[in-house]
């Protein structure tokens, strides 16, 4: 199956083309984003450190992403743990609603929250509104990651802890939590990454303080600012790859801890 392998490699090149180009332009000594490249410079990275508005946007995004990661992971633990329990009435429709944001167009989520927050409650937009919305869309991803961790638990372990006199809560804390910890870390990192990059919802719901993608969107209209955006993007991509690699290692370690064969993939 040589042809298929060639196709697979060509496809990976297609997937990675934008990521390969990003650092090229970030280190390129020219104002315009085009070939041929002119020369090596770290000028655009230095410019980043002088841009106060961009730094404020980055700080905003980091706060939002961290809060989203914690909230969506806590809610995700509840849902993933509940999914392993026996059936209750309406289990499937309830889980369906929780997972719905995975397939819903993001603009629909953005528009519906905007209507409720601004038109119905007359509240202002702030970081809180973005955190609330990002938690909603990250929750299904958290659950997908955590499901793997919780479903592979041997129920005998919890029963043994209960028989030995632990309460339900201490059995959870002392036995289950350490076993699913890799899944939790993986879920935190994935929600953090999604929230950090999310633009469509943040654009609708951000108030006076833009998040980083919203700020970058504004810069895309000014050709002179583009090399700085490329530098910013390079840092972001490097950070995402590091976080995801850690998340993947954690996920695999979790599977190994549960004594399972790796079936691969986050979703």
């Amino acid at each position, binding site marked *: 199956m040589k042809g298929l392998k060639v196709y*697979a490699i060509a496809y990976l090149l297609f997937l990675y083309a934008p990521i390969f180009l990003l650092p090229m332009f970030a280190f390129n000594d020219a104002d315009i984003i085009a*070939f041929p490249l002119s020369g090596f410079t770290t000028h655009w990275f230095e410019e980043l450190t002088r841009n106060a508005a961009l730094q404020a946007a980055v700080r905003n995004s980091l706060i939002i992403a961290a809060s989203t990661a914690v909230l969506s992971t806590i809610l995700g633990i509840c849902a993933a743990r509940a999914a392993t329990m026996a059936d209750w009435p309406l289990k499937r429709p309830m889980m369906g609603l929780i997972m719905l944001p995975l397939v819903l167009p993001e603009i629909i989520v953005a528009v519906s929250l905007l*209507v409720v927050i601004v038109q119905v409650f007359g509240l202002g937009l702030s970081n809180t509104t973005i955190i609330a919305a990002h938690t909603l869309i990250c929750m299904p991803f958290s659950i997908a990651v955590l499901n793997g961790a919780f479903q592979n638990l041997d129920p005998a372990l919890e029963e043994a802890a209960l028989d030995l006199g632990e309460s339900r809560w201490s059995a959870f804390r002392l036995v289950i939590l350490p076993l699913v910890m890799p899944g939790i870390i993986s879920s935190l990192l994935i929600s953090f990454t999604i929230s950090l990059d999310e633009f469509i919802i943040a654009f609708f719901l951000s108030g006076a303080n833009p998040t980083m993608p919203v700020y970058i969107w504004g810069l895309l209209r000014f050709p002179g600012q583009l090399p700085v955006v490329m530098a910013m993007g390079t840092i972001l991509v490097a950070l995402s790859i590091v976080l995801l690699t850690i998340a993947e290692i954690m996920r695999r370690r979790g599977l190994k801890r549960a004594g399972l064969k790796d079936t691969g993939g986050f979703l």
Partner: protein
Amino acid sequence: MFRKRLTDSGRRGLILVSPPFLYGVLLLAVPLATVLLFSFWTQDYLTIDTSFTFANYSEALADPLYMQLLRGSLLIAGAVTVATVLLAFPIAYFVSFHVQPSRKSLWLFLITIPFWTSYLIRVFLWKVILGYNGVLNSSLTGLGLIDEPLSFILYNANAVVITLAHAFAPFAILPIFVALEKIDRSLLEASLDLGETRLTTFLRVTLPLAMPGVVAAVLIVFIPTIGDYVTPRLVGGPDGLMIANMIQTQFLKLNNAPMGATLAILAMLSVTAVSLAFIWLNRRWLRGPR
């Protein structure tokens, strides 16, 4: 005794699921219902007229601009879906059937990484790649393959299809991969032993068994594509604009939330209708040959 324990476990499950479920109700179900309600109201300059009316719907359905955008969006989303799934299937097949089991998760990881990197910057870089003086055109002219830069690849629907096929790649690959992994390999051997060729085995055994994954891939690509306004705005040009751009304009620029809500509902309804039709056709087709 056993029955009682089951309900006990079920009760704890219900308690545990309540926080995420209530979150979903408050931040998703209630807002969606509100949008539906808004679509039956009208904007009266600065205030909203809350008398129930179909005025927005009749205006939207009668306006050729809105209908053109909606039709165009469905066509572009359909083209994106076909391109993404056709490109993704061989990859999922390759990883499932021709990669050693120990290296499968590495391949899947490599496939998913680009998906997690900044969406905005990825879309912008496609603009750089596809542009008149872009990476693709300058390398093709440099290699002497073309004399004039290709102009049909940026600022039109083609650019939107290419960019979104890139953005949604893992969404299409993973469900197909999961379906392929579930196929019992001895069925393929049996088919070959019974005199089918490799091609007919693929068409009559592998493909029908992989269809649930393909259907999932189609839906998971098609539905969110309708809601994208970044890619059309950056690489689509005037012909590539989609209904989501209009929804965004209604809400954020024209300050006409009821009309925006109506367009959002219409977009959702048409996406749901197309999806249901696809699932129905697929069921019929799968049942047919047996």
